[in-house]
């Protein structure tokens, strides 16, 4: 159990290192001179050269990479060009908001998606199945940023029920604790609903497919031959076995879930890593872009590792040394 996990952890670190290296190379391959950008268009050639030297850009690429990697590992991620604040502080403030949104939306969309998939599988081929399939395909096709805007239009502009921007009201700090919590929940509602709705479709489609595929298996025949109630066969036998690939799917789809979060955070001004990334990209704030990309890859990789541990826990077969 431990050794494969350790191997996975090393592989995960390799992925993060790969991301960091890739981003470094991309930043260097991109057109435009950061030194020139910093000193402005009116600067003389000498001023640009001085700035290049100060930034270490006149050193060989390998030396720059080595120095940069060393600083990165030590947590010195430089300062944001746009705000002047240390990049590390920006991201330390941002990541809990993203993690909260991602974890809650995964829990909700998997709970609802699995339920929908089970209902569909239990009535597979019926009219209800067709209707629910149409619903899940549609949810699957809806772009998150558009759904977010439509929810804002209905719940914020028309019904005036829920706030659409940020993670708390302007006066949140001065509210009593219960009101503060309520305010937080109200701000969470729309971004969470958007991400959850977008996620349900994919999960439901997958669960239904996995359960229908199991139909005709010997163990189901045995379970039915024993005289078990259909609901018990469905939940204890079919669903349990269908859930293992679902857990694997969860790990593999984390990058996609994170991608969705980036757009949703941009729409709702949710103070997470995605919004920091989008703002930095739009402002060409390279140090922030770099670190945000690394942090997001880190979050995804950590989630992947967690999903794999869940699979090992749920399916004892994968724990056997000869299984892999």
């Amino acid at each position: 159990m431990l050794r494969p996990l350790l191997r996975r952890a090393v592989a995960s670190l390799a992925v993060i290192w790969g991301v960091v290296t890739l981003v470094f190379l991309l930043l260097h391959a991109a057109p435009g001179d950061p030194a020139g950008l910093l000193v402005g268009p009116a600067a003389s050639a000498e001023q640009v050269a001085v700035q290049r030297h100060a930034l270490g850009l006149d050193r060989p690429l390998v030396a720059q990479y080595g120095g940069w990697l060393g600083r990165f590992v030590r947590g010195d991620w430089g300062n944001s060009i746009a705000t002047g604040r240390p990049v590390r502080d920006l991201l330390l403030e941002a990541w809990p908001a993203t993690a909260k949104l991602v974890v809650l939306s995964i829990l909700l969309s998997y709970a609802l998606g699995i339920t929908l998939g089970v209902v569909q599988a239990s009535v597979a081929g019926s009219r209800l199945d067709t209707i629910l399939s149409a619903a899940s395909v549609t949810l699957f096709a809806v772009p998150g940023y558009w759904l977010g805007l439509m929810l804002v239009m209905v719940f914020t502009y028309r019904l005036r029920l829920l706030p659409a921007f940020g993670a708390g009201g302007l006066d949140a700090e001065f509210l009593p604790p219960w009101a503060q919590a309520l305010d937080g929940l109200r701000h969470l509602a729309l971004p969470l609903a958007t991400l959850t709705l977008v996620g349900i479709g994919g999960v439901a489609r997958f669960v239904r497919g996995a359960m229908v595929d199991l139909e005709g298996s010997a163990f189901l025949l045995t379970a039915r031959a024993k005289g078990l109630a259909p609901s018990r066969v469905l939940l204890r036998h079919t669903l349990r076995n269908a859930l293992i690939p679902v857990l694997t799917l969860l790990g593999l789809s984390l990058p996609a879930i994170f991608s969705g979060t980036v757009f949703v955070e941009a729409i709702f001004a949710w103070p997470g890593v995605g919004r920091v990334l989008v703002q930095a990209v739009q402002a060409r704030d390279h140090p922030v872009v770099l670190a945000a990309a690394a942090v997001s890859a880190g979050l995804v990789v950590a989630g992947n590792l967690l999903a794999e541990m869940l699979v090992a826990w749920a399916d004892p077969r994968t724990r056997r040394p000869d299984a892999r």
Partner: protein
Amino acid sequence: MLDDARAVLGSALLTGVVLVALLAPVISTGDPARQRDVVATRLLPPASTDTFGVFHPLGTDRLGRDVWTRLAFGARVSLSVGTLAVVLSIAIGVVVGATAALARGWVATGLLALTDFALALPRVVLLLLLAALWSPSVTVVILVLGVTGWMTVARLVYAESRGLVTRPFAEAALALGAGRGRLLVRHLLPNLATPIVVTAALGIGNAILLEAGLSFLGLGVQPPAPSWGNMIAAGRDALMDAPWIAGAPGIALVVVVVGCTLLGDALQERLSPARRMRARQSVLSR
């Protein structure tokens, strides 16, 4: 194929959108950037006629431009970006997957590790990064989408090729002295065509969604050229007064992606053994 309702509906939806894109100049007011009297024609609701006697089936935007015309011309951008990006990612994926399958050894290990690495990255992060570093244009969007979308194809081609290589027809070809290249082009790829088409159908939907997403963030197709993504972005400020500006392109996106998904599902079901891969693939390629 035609007995499958999903295939029929999916094809119908996509054919409809393709026709709109092809016939855009004929079935619309002609120029997606045309403004006459901005004050008199701005934010007209759907199905209204302006002071010049021009009918606007989907209303006008903040600058008095016809939303239907922009939608129809935007379909050209969305469909061509989606298709070209997927063609590019299939080309890369086939080369990587087939090389890994036929080369074996450290080349295969390296290519598979590269594929796994690329799969673990959040695609949008990479997209944002690439789109931010090079100034946004349609070409950049196509390249970026293609370069970030080949991994599922590579995995598929690798897995299927490894299976096909052991089949008697491949062994026969090798026994007759066919080289690896010939084996791949003449014997393996024709057998891989159908699963690749399925991946393409699902991939085009995703590529279109991502293109719209990039354009929505201002990193894709630049205004005044219409794209469904930048139309949604433009409608964002007018959600209260003119929900149709952002509403119409969003519904168009849903129609295209539903069409691609239904068609992909129906095609996939014909290849029963790989069925389970379907939903996973479509979720992953986002």
